[in-house]
């Protein structure tokens, strides 16, 4: 098993999470990718979606609306404009987010955008199902 690395989730308002983890799955702009220790340095924007964080002690899902990820060999920093740690927020907030996403779907102009939003909605629904 690979070693741990530092994972930080930063919102404009504060640092939401700062833990040592084994593995993080990130919804990157060009497809999901998994970050393990000693990952090559990457800067990627994020699509609306779910980040899965895994370590020996914790396993968390985080929904992000948009943001970007900065990967270095021993650290992953995610700057997210809006992030919800699924176990910690009020489920109602997720519902609200879902509503917003659905509205975004109606106003989306390109097929690409529509695809992204649809995917985000699916993931949100799954999360809400999990939380319930």
């Amino acid at each position, binding site marked *: 098993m690979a070693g741990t690395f530092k994972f930080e989730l*930063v*919102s*404009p*308002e*504060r*640092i939401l999470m700062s833990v040592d983890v084994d593995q993080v799955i990130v919804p*990157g*702009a*060009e497809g999901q990718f998994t970050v393990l220790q000693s990952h*090559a*340095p*990457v*800067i*990627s*924007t994020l699509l609306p979606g779910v980040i899965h964080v895994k370590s020996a002690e914790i396993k968390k899902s985080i929904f992000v609306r948009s943001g*970007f990820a*900065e990967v*270095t060999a021993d650290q992953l*920093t995610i*700057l997210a*404009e*809006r992030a919800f740690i699924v176990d910690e927020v009020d489920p109602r907030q997720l519902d609200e987010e879902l509503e917003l996403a659905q509205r975004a779907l109606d106003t989306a102009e390109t097929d690409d955008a529509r695809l992204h939003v649809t995917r985000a909605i699916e993931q949100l629904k799954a999360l809400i199902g999990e939380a319930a």
Partner: protein
Amino acid sequence: MASLKDLRNRINSVKATRKITKAMQMVAAAKLRRAQEAAIAARPYAERMDAVLSNLAKGVASPEGASPLLVGTGKDDTHLLVMMTAERGLCGGFNSNIAKLVRNDAKRLIKAGKTVKILAVGRKGADNLKRDLGKFITDRVSLVGIKKLGFDKAAEIADKVMSQFADGAFDVCTIYFSQFESVISQKPTALQLIPASLPDAASSGAAAADSVVYDYEPDENEILDYLLRRNISTQIFRGLLENAASEQGARMSAMDNATRNASDMIDNLTLIYNRQRQAQITKELIEIISGAEAL
């Protein structure tokens, strides 16, 4: 000369005022702590953003293809001044200092033949400029009833700015806010948003990360474009937070002064009151004694 009763009323009313200013000072102190914490908590995000952004901007090869957010529209005919002030007064020179800075800049630009537009965030600054620069205020954003300043508000202002920029309504955008230095010192500051003024990578704290060569997904230009847009709202958010802390700091010291002044006034009035009371007693005694002697 005021009668004893008048003096007593005066003293009581100043005492009541002192109670209010004292309470306001304590409320401001509590709010200041929270505002400061919020400003500090928001710092990591802005620092990261700055570091990555300046890193990327250095790599922009040719200015032609770069985003207008970074290099500007090539003109500087129309200026948008985003003035951030408070919704409430009673905080010393806080609002008027920002308004003064905006007024000076606006007048200088107008004299140079530029077009000026002002976006007023918060009521107090707009009120201050209404008389002479009122016709330049094109838009307002209200901060009424906001208990905790969230990123949403900054995003809302940024959206306004961005959509105007997309319409070509202005070439240069500057935000005005008060930099929080300490409780007794807040510095009105102008910060140019568009074209972006980037800090030096060396001074942004994350210099160590600069030596790493990153892969970019999608390509560099797209990320830079995304970040520049994010940067607008981040900077506005930072301005709002700094302003919130400054406002409370300014209010705290203003109310501290007011409380001290009220105390001085009470001391003075009490002295006069006691002197008059004694004079009256003496007068009454003289009247009684001279009355008795006359018998």
